[in-house]
């Protein structure tokens, strides 16, 4: 009997382990949009699953806490970029995912071996980018080319320090070094699935196509690489001097126009000789 009980107990625990399987979690995550920002081993926009499992390894109620984070969204634990809420996920699925992720801490070594065999899916490769892609991306950014689904052009809110771009918006972050910060996949992920509330709303009904995303990433990568060499022109004293010169030219112009004005009354000579009381 004791043996029977212990078998049941062990199998129960074992079952628990089987239940908290990462593969099953991953298959669920593929159905949702999790993998746009997260991967198993690498930081994209959000932290990698391994990092998460490491951080929460020793916390007791990590599972419920993270489940809530997934459903309601969270911010501040991994940096400024927020995790968007997923209210459509049901709690059971979310918990399955979280426990799958947390289980990684135990099976880390195995997964590392596996990881090496995994091919990198649709990663941006700077070496294959052509000048045409970059230019196309620049046009998309500036709005000279309209996005296929009529989404707003990047320049409306963002700026990039690049000689080709004149002046972008200052409503959102400067994207000059976005490539260094987030990497190709990160930028790709954000463009495909914007995690920021305003950007999400802006592209909700006007999603970017993969081609457009590719071109934009190519452009941002290019801008990132070049930005060190692109300094604003220094006019020095010439700027002030040309301003002064321009003002003088305008003054002379206005004086010339105003000189023809009828400034005095026809009766001026009569008024002049009139006796004044004050």
């Amino acid at each position, binding site marked *: 009997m004791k043996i029977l009980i212990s078998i049941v107990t062990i199998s129960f625990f074992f079952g628990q382990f089987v239940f908290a399987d990462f593969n099953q979690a991953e298959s669920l995550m593929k159905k949702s949009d999790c993998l746009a920002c997260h991967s198993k081993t690498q930081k994209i926009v959000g932290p990698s699953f391994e990092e998460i499992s490491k951080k929460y390894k020793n916390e007791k109620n990590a599972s419920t806490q993270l489940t809530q984070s997934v459903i309601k969204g969270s911010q501040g634990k991994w940096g400024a970029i927020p995790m968007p809420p997923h209210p459509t996920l049901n709690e059971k699925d979310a918990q399955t995912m979280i426990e799958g992720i947390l289980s990684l801490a135990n099976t880390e070594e195995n997964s590392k071996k596996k990881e090496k065999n995994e091919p990198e899916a649709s990663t941006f490769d700077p070496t294959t980018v052509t000048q045409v892609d970059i230019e196309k991306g620049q046009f998309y950014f500036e709005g000279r080319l309209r996005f296929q689904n009529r989404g707003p052009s990047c320049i409306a809110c963002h700026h990039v320090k690049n000689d080709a771009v004149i002046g972008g918006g200052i409503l959102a972050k400067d994207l000059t070094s976005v490539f260094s910060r987030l990497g190709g996949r990160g930028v790709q992920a954000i463009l495909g699935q914007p995690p920021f509330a305003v950007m999400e709303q802006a592209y909700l009904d006007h999603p970017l196509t993969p081609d457009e995303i590719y071109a934009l990433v190519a452009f941002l990568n290019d801008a990132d690489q070049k930005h060190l060499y692109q300094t604003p022109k220094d006019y020095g004293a010439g700027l002030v001097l040309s301003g002064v010169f321009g003002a003088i030219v305008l003054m002379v112009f206005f004086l010339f126009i*105003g000189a023809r004005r009828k400034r005095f009354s*026809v*009766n001026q000579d009569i*008024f002049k000789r009139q006796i004044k009381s*004050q």
Partner: protein
Amino acid sequence: MNVRSQVSMVFHLDKCIGCHTCSIACKNIWTDRKGAEYMWWNNVETKPGTGYPTKWEDQSIYKGGWQKTEGGENEISLRGAGKRKGLLNIFHNPNMPVIDDYYEPFTYKYLDLIESPSMDDQPTARPVSLITGRPIDIKMGPNWDDDLSGTQDFARKDPNLENLSPAEQEAMFQLERMAFFYLPRICNHCLNPACVASCPSGAIYKRGEDGVVLINQNVCRAWRMCVTACPYKKSYYNWNTGKSEKCILCYPRIEAGYAPACMHSCVGRIRYLGVLLYDADRIEQAAASDDSELVQKQLDLLLDPCDPAVIAAAKENGIADSTLHAAQNSPVYKFVKEWKLALPLHPEFRTLPMLFYVPPLLPVMATIREKIKDQKLHDIAKDWEDTWLYDTSTQELWGAIDQARFPLKYMANLFSNGDQNLMKEKLLKLMAVRIYRRHKTVGDVTEEKSNQVLKEAGLTPKMAEAIYALTSLAKFDDRFVIPAAHREQAIEMMEFTGDVKGSTGFGFKDQTAKRGL
């Protein structure tokens, strides 16, 4: 033939006594407001004189009115505006009169007279500016040169003296020879208004049904191009509301069947108001015609309201029967077309003014000639005990028009674009009527002579009687033949009145115009 109707006017200058009642009536009704103190929609000037604003007739200063386009055949363009000039002077209007060209409006501190404490000197009411509110020295008024006051500064600088020789000018201002007459002026409600053409905002329009030129206060954007463009300087800028304003021919009164305030109040009964029918198709041609035929072309525009063809064309254009009837009884038509007594003021501005003046006979009445010794003088001729003789009798009137103490040339510069013969023709007619009436009433002129002068002037005794009656005896309804206003029809042409059904009036009461700057 594109027949339109216009409520137009005749001023009989011989009857004007220069009392300024018209100006005051207009002021009290329309321009007794802040920002409008300096405006005189109606003013009375003494001629010769520089007028109000000073030297308004001199377009080399103010650049008003139309001129023939250089190189263009029968084309006219605005003297002070136009596409290129407009672009060069955008936001800048160099030829506008300054306030001192009008005058700085003033009042007196009358309360100082009452509230002054007891003291050795009499209290005085100091003049204060109506613009700044501060005490000022009065420099000028709207009729500062009234009755030839300040002749050296004003009358001698009259722009109409331009074509007169220095000797002629000198003769005009000799003390014994001096003569003057009054010239009441309101907006001419021109057929080819320069103000309408110049407005960049399109705020000015000529009302279709009666030809009154109006400025829409809601559309006016203070460009003040109309102030420059109007050669008669009858568009004024209200510095308080930031809108331009002008004579509205008392259209609310006309619509109600009353005569305009200035005409109603006229003491000398010099003013006549009536409908004229004109051919709108020929306006451009008339305005662009040569200097010599400008007056005639303008008078040719006016159509005979009894002509069946004109009546048919008028009805086709939707002119109401009441308007046609008014046109047939119009005193203006009689003066201008039937008797050919009236002329427009300064036709050379090419705006085709629709206010006509019967030129004054009075300043030319007394003739001047060298006294011939031992000649028997007429009983009423005045002998001034020197070599000059002023003959105010009718005996020698006929042959004396050329020797009139007031140069014909001056009058021709005012009313007929320098055409002295045209001027003489009008004066002869006026004189013929006088001689005819003198035969009738005094009897010292023979019937033979009176009939002869009438014939020479191109009048018949019947016409002379009619002229005499309308000039001297006319009652209110003879002087003002105002057609019933069909405002509702005019409005319906432009807007659907059903939208405002149930609201007061026609529902076109706009809010008070707000400053548009």
